């Protein structure tokens, strides 16, 4: 691992100052960054430690849940209110990584998780537009079983790996940030950006901007929510396809729905067409299946990951069924 400097700011303002500069990286849990440092994918000149700066509080009030960006995944996953009021979030978190990693990983870091594309992670491979803009994409002609089918571009097909983000997307979460130039709020759906011509750009965040909090509104829908994840082994694996869904029912009818997909998109993927198709329909398997088929509209698969076109809708149906059966 290359050497780097390390600073431990005493407060957020100091962190915002110290985070200025293209080769500075913020660190909280370190589960992603230390891995990428060791792979030589990240080569920062210095790390700015946000532990002791970020809040790790998780608070519940009449409006919903406020999560300090420093909160660890474990604490969020087992929080009473999260389990009761927004089960999809708890289920998504517990389907990701291992207990050890969840003990370490912060919520802020999880939002900014980088792809597991094997070509991105291997500096021995020259062609990776995300790691080395303009160098090409080895995955398009390579082994792409784990890669995305939605939101891909000719320059990048890397899948977004987070489970938590998918659940937060289905819960209409809002991300709060601080920058030297001020504070702002972003809908979670606006945080991540499509690879397009610039796969190296992954989020709307400006250099030196810090995620401080995530807010998740409480709702009827959030209570009737579920996460289903399909993967290569029973536990401790990234998603081949996953779905976070939330249903608001009125009698037997669906008043509103949220459907977000993981493992298939270049960013956490909101299935707006499918959501609209469920509105006003009875909460039955037929409705779920019809809506699920729409989630793959616009998908572009490779020969290795075409199975996801079939798998993902099935996962969506399973998640809708699970959510629908919750009271």
């Amino acid at each position, binding site marked *: 691992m290359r050497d780097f*400097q390390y600073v431990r700011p005493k407060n957020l303002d100091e962190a915002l100052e110290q985070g200025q500069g293209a080769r500075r990286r913020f660190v909280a849990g370190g589960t992603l960054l*230390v*891995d990428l440092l060791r792979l030589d994918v990240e080569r920062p000149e210095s790390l700015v430690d946000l532990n002791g700066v970020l809040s790790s509080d998780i608070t519940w009030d009449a409006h919903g849940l406020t999560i300090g960006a420093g909160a660890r995944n474990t604490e969020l996953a087992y929080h009473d209110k999260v389990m009761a009021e927004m089960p999809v979030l708890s289920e998504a978190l517990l389907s990701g990584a291992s*207990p050890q990693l969840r003990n370490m990983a912060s919520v802020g870091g999880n939002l900014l998780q980088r792809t597991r594309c094997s070509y991105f992670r291997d500096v021995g491979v020259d062609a990776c537009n995300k790691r080395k803009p303009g160098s090409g994409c080895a995955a398009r002609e390579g082994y792409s079983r784990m890669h995305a089918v939605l939101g891909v571009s000719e320059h990048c097909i890397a899948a977004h790996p987070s489970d938590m983000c998918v659940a937060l997307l289905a819960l209409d979460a809002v991300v709060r940030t601080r920058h030297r130039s001020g504070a702002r709020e972003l809908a979670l759906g606006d945080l991540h950006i499509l690879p397009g011509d610039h796969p190296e750009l992954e989020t709307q965040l400006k250099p030196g901007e810090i995620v401080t909090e995530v807010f998740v509104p409480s709702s009827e829908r959030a209570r009737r929510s579920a996460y289903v994840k399909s993967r290569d082994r*029973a536990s401790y694996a990234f998603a081949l396809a996953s779905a976070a869904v939330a249903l608001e029912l009125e009698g037997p009818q669906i008043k509103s729905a949220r459907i977000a997909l993981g493992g298939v998109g270049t960013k956490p993927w909101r299935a707006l067409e499918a959501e609209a198709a469920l509105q006003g329909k009875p909460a039955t398997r037929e409705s779920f299946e019809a809506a699920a088929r729409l989630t793959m509209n616009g998908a572009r698969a490779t020969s290795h990951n075409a199975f996801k076109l079939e798998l993902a809708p099935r996962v969506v149906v399973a998640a809708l069924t699970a959510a629908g059966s919750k009271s």
Partner: protein
Amino acid sequence: MLDAGLDRMGQHFQLLARSAGQPLVLVFARNWGEPSPATLEAIRAELRGLGAALLVLGLHSLFCFRPDDELEEVEPTAVLEAGVGKLFEQYEVDPGALAAGQLTLCVLDATGRLRFRRTADAADGIPEALLRALQIAGKTAISGPADARDWLIKRREVVVLSLLGALALVLADGCKREVPNAPAPTPAPPKAREFPVTLRVNGQQHELMVEPRVSLLDALRERLGLTGSKKGCDHGQCGACTVLVDGRRVNACLTLAIMVGDKPVTTIEGMAEGERLHPLQAAFITEDALQCGYCTPGQIMSAAGLLKENRAHTDDEVREHLSGNICRCGAYANIVRAVQSARAARPT
């Protein structure tokens, strides 16, 4: 250089010992002899196990040996010879006995304190005798009962001898830098990028200087000699490095030592109470929950976290909550049994 070193020793012993940060094996012998390649490799392996460098103080020569470097003979200079003489004197090593084929081996820990001392007959060759003494030192460090591990030497001696450790460290330092006829080097300032870190491991406090890139796992294994925590993948994918930090299980390979702060760390070495194994250790043996054993320390530490969290009760839940620990031998069935029987054995 020696005077400067002695001066530093007096005034900045703490700093010096901390920056040295590595155990040191001191060997008093007639000479280094001519080790066979096999013996040299075995010596290397023992030094790696101890995480130590070797300094051979001969009657007329001085050798420095770090496990991953080539053997280095140090040009004797007046100052070095004076320093060596001083060590002979202070450690009460009789040059006559060395000439007659004896060897004295001392292991100093990272803070320069004497941890092990042994005088042996080297009739069949100095390298061989050195290797045997090293092996005994290694075994003592790893498997000796806590108090013997702590002190094979009486406490009173320790206090007297600990300062001498600093002198030895100064000499080892000199080995690295001494260039014949070169002007005496000024004491190297601590590296700009090293930070003082206090690690509290298994109830013991350790002062280290580390670069920010040093993982907790490497600090434990390479600096503190606690090689129970294993390096499997070094990427948070296998769990072999699992330790408890502040009572929570984490991957030590993805944890930077500098970020641990004063949070207590528990490794597999801190699980037993003296000779009495932790219920999980005992259960892993009883249930035959391992084949090669490489993942076992991580499995046990992870299981310790699991039992403490108290969220996994059924076999399926245990499997899910231990999924961060991979076992290539596939001892999973017995691992689950061991965890369940340790839970039952544990007073709740």
